[in-house]
């Protein structure tokens, strides 16, 4: 068969990627033709790409060609795949060709390009996150993924056109872009020129019909409410009416928590923080706080949950720190362990145990695993050249040596890397090496070391990964990192070090050595559990019954996804291995990185000195959790999120609902007579609650937080539309209506209090106390929205939940913690951040102007008049963006070569 393509024809991209998938099934010849050539004899208008089959038939539809390749490789298309392909052809393509036409042919940028396609992108994102599957048609990749990826790639490869808030779309796109057939197709078509490679083809095309007759509007679409069927509404009403009675009995709290056969047993670990440093906000959100949300959620589901963490105490870094502070390593560990524990206590982290790695259990377990690996021949011996300082009488770890960089001649290069040229250095290659402690010149000595024979374990690892990863909740970045390590092939890794501060090596001839921290740190989880209960093997040697969730930042993935499993598999002792590896990306601070040495950023121990409550920190950090991509902490954004989402949305709603009960009904929940509108609201809340569950089950923590805020928005709208404060003064029917609205609203508030528990535990219990929420409702979160506060229930005293953050307060904090703003190299334009009042005024004006435009459009007013009002609106929006400190032109400035 022969494939006809043309330079820069966008349809070539999915077709080549799909062909790559079916490679070897049939011989494929590729011919390049001009953009206006008519390849298919029966079609009047040119069409590219086209596949001519051996039978002589032509496939002239891009999607049909892709389908054909997939069919050849044996995969049939199901309903969902068909639906996506139909949607692509009928909805996405018209929008996309308009966007590409604006961008490539007309040279427009930014919102002009994104405008026509935004709805379609949002649709994909919502579908992915609603179904919580990594791919469009489920757990595995289908032709729909390839077709949509190929269609969108030219646009989305420029990050400016991949809206940041569409997290699910983002990770889907990254997953596909990293696959080999896709990468090759992208290189062939775009030839590293980016979108401009499409220009020769698109210029020859007719102007897309989308452009004609349809005014392009920058107005954001009203958020679309899902359509509900009668059945869904009826089910929501039935569940609601059952009330508290339908909750399962509360499980008694156990100590120690142990797995129970036949139940869901969830073991949660958070990466062990290095003891010798105070964790910064990025460390906290990356593992400890994320794992805490999941642990709290897991307990709300009544799953058998054990959450553990601890400080990682051995290693060179501790020895260095001890020397700096003039203490022994043990004293350093004791001192910093307490600091860590205090910080996490302040952040309200619900560990079952927060342990440490310097325990006898750690030695015992590490040595046992080592012995088993040694006995089974998975440990090699080899000699390593190392620098030794004769005066200090010890081998020098990389960071104890300094010298002249062999590459660039920089005088203060470190033993592992040169700070000037950034090249990696082998310590023995340094010119004029110096011991960092005594400044004498070390000598090169050879030292025997032990190596973990990873290549020998690779097959077992691959087999285990093949069974574990597909269908699990491993984050895409973790899958990607592991895949790339395996692709490069595993090498033996040194597991011993010439140090004193570590777990001793139980082998003759190695008495003066200890295990390298990365080998034994991951066994810390096991030893910490052993410190918690002597029945630790019920958790750690029980892979059939235990679901292990490990939380970490992405730099820790190789140790948890490769090294630890290899050691455990090689030990052949039935260890529980990670079922779901949850890795975050990095959190930046304002515009740069957190840096202890430069004093930039907020560190765990300082957060409480800011006077901002722990729950607000938790909320904001979870709101910007680097899920799927890096994110940044910003003071201004924190102020805005606190004042808009917490104060105006969530706090306002819960407070109003409670106040109406107190003020109008003497503190007793009134009788509720549900109308069909109320029933519809029940169903919408129920649907959002189910979405929240789906997301959290998949550990999509940041996205699930949005569901809480959405429900609260529904609640606010509901109160606003029904105006109970007016109706309470009206007729008997009006008074009854006011009662129903108040009763339903206060029940939504009660639901929100439980949904908030994983995120803001203190606020959650404040709401529960104010509403006198019955105790089972505080401890169990059902999958349906139930009436937990029936008519006649008496609530407590209602008071505001959140405080406004003021601009001066935040400005002071920014200066105190180094905001980047002042220090960063001069920016092209200094953006003046306006006060929150100004921002509010502008927001109001934007809303007002938006209404004027909408009305004019509805009245089909004169075109010029509409255009003038739209211009005013755009100008206001620009001012608002400036006032909020949002960079206006960033996406436009970036041009890919």
């Amino acid at each position, binding site marked *: 068969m022969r494939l006809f393509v043309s330079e820069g024809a966008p349809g070539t991209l999915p077709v080549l990627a799909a062909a790559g998938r079916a490679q070897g099934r049939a011989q494929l010849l590729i011919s390049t033709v001009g953009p206006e050539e008519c390849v298919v004899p029966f079609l*009047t208008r040119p069409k590219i790409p086209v596949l001519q089959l051996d039978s002589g038939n032509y496939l002239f*539809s891009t999607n049909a060609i892709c389908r054909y390749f997939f069919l050849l490789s044996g995969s049939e298309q199901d309903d969902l795949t068909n639906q996506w392909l139909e949607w692509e052809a*009928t909805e996405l393509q018209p929008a996309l060709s308009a966007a590409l036409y604006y961008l490539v042919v007309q040279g427009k940028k930014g919102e002009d390009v994104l405008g026509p396609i935004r709805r379609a992108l949002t649709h994909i994102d919502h579908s992915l996150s609603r179904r919580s599957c990594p791919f469009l048609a489920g757990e595995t990749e289908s032709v729909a993924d390839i077709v949509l990826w190929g269609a969108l790639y030219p646009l989305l490869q420029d990050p400016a056109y991949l809206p940041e808030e569409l997290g699910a779309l983002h990770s889907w796109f990254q997953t596909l872009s990293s696959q080999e057939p896709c990468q090759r197709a992208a290189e062939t078509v775009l030839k590293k020129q980016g979108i401009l490679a499409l220009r020769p083809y698109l210029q020859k095309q007719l102007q897309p019909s989308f452009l004609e007759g349809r005014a392009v509007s920058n107005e954001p679409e009203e958020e679309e409410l899902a359509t509900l069927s009668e059945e869904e509404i009826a089910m929501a009403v039935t569940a609601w009416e059952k009330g508290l009675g339908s909750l399962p009995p509360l499980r008694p709290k156990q100590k120690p928590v142990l797995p129970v056969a036949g139940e869901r047993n969830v073991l949660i670990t958070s990466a062990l923080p290095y003891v010798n440093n105070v964790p910064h906000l990025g460390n906290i959100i990356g593992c400890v706080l994320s794992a805490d949300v999941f642990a709290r959620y897991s307990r709300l589901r009544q799953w058998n949950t054990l959450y553990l963490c601890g400080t990682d105490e051995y290693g060179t870094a501790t020895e260095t720190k001890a020397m700096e502070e003039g203490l022994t390593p043990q004293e350093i560990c004791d001192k910093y362990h307490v600091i860590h524990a205090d910080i996490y206590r302040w952040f309200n982290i619900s560990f079952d145990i927060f342990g440490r790695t310097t325990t006898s259990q750690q030695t015992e377990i590490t040595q046992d695993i080592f012995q088993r690996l040694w006995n089974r021949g998975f440990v090699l011996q080899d000699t390593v050249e190392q620098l030794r300082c004769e005066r200090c009488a010890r081998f020098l770890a990389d960071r104890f040596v300094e010298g002249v960089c062999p590459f660039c001649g920089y005088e203060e290069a470190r033993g592992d890397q040169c700070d000037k040229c950034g090249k990696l250095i082998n310590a023995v290659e340094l010119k004029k090496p110096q011991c960092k402690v005594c400044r004498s010149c070390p000598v090169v000595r050879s030292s025997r070391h032990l190596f973990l024979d990873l290549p020998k374990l690779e097959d077992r690892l691959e087999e285990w990964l093949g069974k574990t990863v597909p269908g699990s909740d491993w984050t895409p970045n973790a899958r990607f990192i592991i895949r790339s390590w395996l692709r490069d092939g595993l090498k033996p890794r040194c597991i011993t070090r010439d140090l004193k501060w570590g777990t001793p090596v139980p082998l003759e001839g190695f008495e003066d050595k200890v295990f390298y921290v990365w080998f034994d740190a991951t066994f810390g989880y096991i030893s910490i559990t052993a410190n918690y209960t002597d029945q630790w093997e019920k958790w750690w040697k029980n892979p059939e019954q235990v679901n292990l969730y490990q939380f970490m930042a992405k730099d820790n993935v190789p140790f948890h996804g490769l090294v630890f499993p290899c050691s455990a598999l090689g030990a052949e002792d039935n260890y529980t291995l990670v079922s779901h590896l949850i890795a975050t990306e990095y959190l930046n601070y304002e515009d740069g990185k957190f840096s202890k040495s430069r004093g930039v950023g907020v560190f765990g121990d300082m957060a409480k000195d800011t006077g901002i409550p722990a729950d607000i920190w938790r909320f904001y950090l979870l709101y910007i959790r680097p899920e799927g991509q890096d994110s940044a902490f910003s003071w201004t954004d924190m102020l805005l999120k606190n004042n808009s989402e917490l104060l105006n949305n969530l706090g306002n709603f819960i407070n109003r609902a409670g106040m109406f009960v107190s003020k109008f009904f003497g503190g007793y929940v009134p009788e509720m007579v549900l109308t069909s509108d109320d029933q519809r609201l029940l169903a919408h809340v129920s649907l959002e609650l189910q979405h929240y569950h789906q997301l959290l089950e998949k550990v999509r923590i940041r996205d699930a937080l949005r569901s809480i805020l959405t429900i609260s928005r529904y609640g606010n709208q509901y109160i606003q539309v029904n105006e109970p404060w007016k109706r309470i003064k009206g007729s008997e029917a009006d008074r009854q209506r006011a009662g129903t609205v108040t009763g339903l609203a206060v029940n939504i508030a009660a639901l929100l209090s439980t949904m908030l528990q994983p995120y803001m535990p203190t606020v959650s219990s404040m709401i529960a106390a104010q509403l006198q929420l019955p105790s089972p409702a505080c401890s169990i979160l059902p999958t349906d929205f139930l009436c937990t506060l029936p008519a006649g229930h008496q609530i407590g005293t209602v008071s505001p939940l959140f405080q406004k953050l003021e601009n001066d307060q935040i400005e002071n904090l920014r200066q105190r913690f180094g905001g980047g703003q002042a220090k960063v190299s001069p920016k092209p334009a200094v953006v003046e951040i306006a006060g929150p009042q100004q921002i509010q005024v502008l927001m109001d004006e934007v809303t007002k102007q938006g209404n004027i435009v909408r009305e004019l459009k509805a009245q089909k007013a004169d075109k010029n008049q509409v255009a003038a009002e739209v211009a005013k609106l755009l100008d206001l929006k620009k001012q608002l963006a400036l006032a909020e400190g949002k960079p206006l032109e960033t996406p436009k400035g970036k041009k890919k070569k």
Partner: protein
Amino acid sequence: MAAAAELTLLEKSLGLSKGNKYSAQGERQIPVLQTNSGPCLTGLATIAAHLVKEANKEFLLGSTAEEKAIVQQWLEYRVTQVDGNSNKEDIRILLKDLNSYLEDKVYLTGYNFTLADIVLYYGLHRFIVDLTVQEKEKYLNVSRWFCHIQHYPGIRQHLSSVVFIKNRLYTNSH
């Protein structure tokens, strides 16, 4: 013909007795089917293929990889090219292309009757009824195919039967 009405016709022609209810979405009135087993299905081609499977008549979706791809290609052609094209010039090109395609074919896939024939027949009906005798003769292959499908048992149902004249009247136009 509204998409929902068309799908009801299709159900009958496939021998499905149940009678699904369809809602319509958006400006273009895209049909939506609420299935018992799962989420809603959206889109004419998608639902049509689903109904065929429900009726256990998978052969209507093609039997080889090639045939399956061709069926889907014409279903897509139907929803992208036939629907929404009311401009005379577009329809002229559409009929001309189809006429040339069908020159050596009995059905859209060649020798087997498939869902593509049914769905394209329903989609083209509104244009074909308005054709003049001369135009019908001009698009001779389309006419032959269309006439054949409308006489296929159970397909046409209440749709009007389009009359084609077997004797050529305009011989000099060819």
